[in-house]
């Protein structure tokens, strides 16, 4: 299935800003993180279609997944 993945802030470094990626059915958010090599512990916000979800949320065909890191500078 196709998932539209959007990355924010420094998650883009060495990856991409936004991309449509192919994933198997029943892929969870955590599986996407693992494929993108984003450590779960510094993950800030996960949205699917603009709504907050947990890491075990299962994605559906055509979902837009947004990943934001915790941002600490100031």
């Amino acid at each position: 299935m196709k998932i539209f993945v959007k990355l924010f802030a420094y998650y883009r470094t060495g990856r991409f800003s936004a991309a449509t990626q192919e994933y198997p059915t029943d892929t969870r958010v955590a599986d996407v993180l693992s494929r993108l090599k984003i450590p779960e512990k510094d993950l800030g916000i996960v949205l699917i279609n603009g709504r907050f979800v947990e890491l075990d949320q299962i994605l559906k065909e055509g979902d837009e997944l947004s990943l934001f890191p915790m941002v600490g500078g100031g």
Partner: protein
Amino acid sequence: MTEVAPVWKDERYSRQTRFAGLGEEGQKRLANSRVAIVGCGALGTAQAELLARAGVGTIRVIDRDYVERSNLQRQLLFDEQDAASGLPKAIAAANHLRAINTSIAIDPVVADLIAPNIEHLLNDVQLILDGTDNFETRFLINDFAVDRNLPWVYGAAVGSFGMKMPVIPGRTCCLSCMKSAAPTSAQPTCETSGVLGSITAVIGALQVADALKILACGPESVAAQITTIDVWSGEVVQFPEPPANPECPTCGRREFPYLKGGYRAPITLCGHNAVQIYDETRTLDLRELGERLQAAGSVRANDFALRFDIPPYQMTIFPDGRAIIKGTVDIGVARSLYSKYIGD
């Protein structure tokens, strides 16, 4: 005898009182408000200048650090002279803020906000603005604010990206609902990844807009919404905050782990190439210490801090016993320099 007009009727606020959202009534509320800014770096200086110009009656500026040349690119209030003098940021900010607005009270505090002093530093404010550069302090602010039912506004930035989120206890989620503890992994910081002055100015300004609304119109007036901005790509993304988590250690279970966690580690990494040592039991006489250290290296001191250069290290020592040792990330080296020059 002519009657003196109340401070909120001052001509200087005329453009603000004409704004329908505030009016004279709102201006009066701002004049009677008391706000704390925790961390006076890029976000904190932007917030402080805007709050001072807006006529917020009392602004407490809390910061543990001193002005450096590398701050000048984005930290709005500071100038070259502040950096050359090595003034603590809270003091330098207060000097500039007083020149901007003499009719408000500025209360600078040179300190690291930690669990043992948070009650003393924040117990009398109506609102806290986040100008910090680390999550440990943010989680501490969050615990205190939720415990006391105080609104606070999270803000952060790195690179060209920033985020803002108001926390209104009882109405919105809190920081711990989103992440139960401060991240432990090494994260990009302004020191390692850089930061643009435009993103910190934008985020600081958004935090101040929420602050003015909360102070003038009440905490219920702000939207429970997260705003993210990337000033380089031009993207603005807004979405509703998640619902409060009943299992949240702070607002759900009310355990307040950071508030009750006691003392912060006495030695912490502080920025890119520096270590902070905080020996809380010590009170230092900087004049006496300066005289003693002159034999060992170059010493510059003002009333608030002493800078001691012993290449390749630089120690900035504060009267409360705290020292920031620049030039190393090795805690052992920092501890040894502290013992050698300040004492065990």
